[in-house]
């Protein structure tokens, strides 16, 4: 079972966590100005890379807080975890 590092609690088992999909998807600054197509992209379209992916996780069976991670979707290895108010770390 994979261990995932919560920024607040440290390394815990994967089963304590809930996946939240792509990170850094900003709510539209001016929602009323969006076209249907722009709304569709905000609601339904996400990146789906084979490789490094910045995504959200929640430590749902622990501190219950959300955090971000950079994970490789081909190897499943976590390269970084960071708090929601922190920028995505530069990783290679």
């Amino acid at each position, binding site marked *: 079972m994979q261990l995932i590092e919560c920024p607040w609690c440290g390394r815990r088992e*994967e089963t304590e966590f809930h996946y939240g999909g792509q990170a850094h998807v900003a709510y539209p600054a001016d929602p009323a100005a969006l076209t249907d197509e722009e709304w*569709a*992209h905000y609601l339904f*379209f996400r990146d789906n890379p084979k490789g490094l992916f910045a995504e959200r996780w929640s430590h749902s069976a622990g501190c219950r807080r959300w955090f971000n991670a950079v994970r490789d979707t081909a190897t499943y290895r976590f390269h970084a975890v960071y708090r929601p108010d922190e920028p995505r770390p530069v990783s290679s």
Partner: protein
Amino acid sequence: MNPLPEHPDVLWRNPEPKRSYDVVIVGAGGHGLATAHYLAKNHGITNVAVLERGWLAGGNMARNTTIIRSNYLWDESAAIYEHALRLWEGLEDDLGYPILFSQRGVLNLAHSLQDVRDSVRRVEANRLNGVDAEWLTPDEVKKVCPIVNTSQEIRYPVLGATYQPRAGIAKHDYVAWGFARRADEAGIDLIQDCEVTGFITDGDRVTGVRTTRGDIATGKVALCAAGHTSVLADQLGLRLPLQSHPLQALVSELLEPVHPTVVMSNAIHVYVSQAHKGELVMGAGIDSYNGYGQRGAFHIIERQMAAAVELFPVFARAHLLRTWGGIVDTTPDASPIVGLTPYANLYLNCGWGTGGFKATPGVGWCMAHTIAHDEPHPYNAPFTLERFVTGALVDEHGAAAVAH
């Protein structure tokens, strides 16, 4: 049980890619091969290459649990899956090749009052669409599948089930090989070990594909790459509402025939059938995170096994033989995307999530029509990319008799 068939020495040629084709299909899995077959059979289009980065039918086609059914809730889904099921019923004759299609029925168990209501609703919806469906009480479930634990004392008791008698399983490899053989006989080139690494475009048209075996010019391109469709589309700058996830399956050692049908349970999420050879074949839901690694998390297997043993106490001493993962591309409404794209001659077939195998002949038929006529077949017309903008979703989440 049917005896296993004898194989001819060579099922298909292994040609060098030509420098141009009328149609290039990317992905030699079940959907790509079925598309090739129906292009030749229904439309007389045979100057076609099917490109495969690995080996023929070695991706999800080799990694699924082979269940075939058409008991979907919404009219659009019932239509395309029922079209597929009717083709399955004649497929051995069409392909001239055994596929061990066994219409042993599928039970979808209900474990809560809400499950019961949803299931009965789906039975009625199926009947209105000409899909065979029945609601069974726990005692009737026991008659169809005596090894199901119908005790009301377990954590998630069986309160009944929907039953589709025409549903069943087929031998997935033989299905692929049958389509491949027929497509090859028609003159279509099946090219393995040929990865598409990019596209050549001219305005709103794709004029060729770049591959690890050189550039290939083409009049039309069909993407049939399942979980890796996003990776391909990214090379065109085409963003799709897809998320790729690992979906795991497993088999037991070979056992005597004990399981006469297919049993699925959405609430506790396991589905089980017994292969012709004797393995218990089991699947569950997708792993939650995005992934392309063709493997998944152990706790998913653990939960699935716990569910299986509670439902089938007789399995408690069966040994797990092996597990594996496929990569499935899921959409926000749990329905596929099949049809046209912003590129005039690029056709898309993706987003089948956990349910692509059962659709194989049906989607091949529809894709071939879409490619040949530059417009969708009525059965795939609802499954547009535009539906995510227009809002005309085909929302099968929780309705399709299994979670995606």
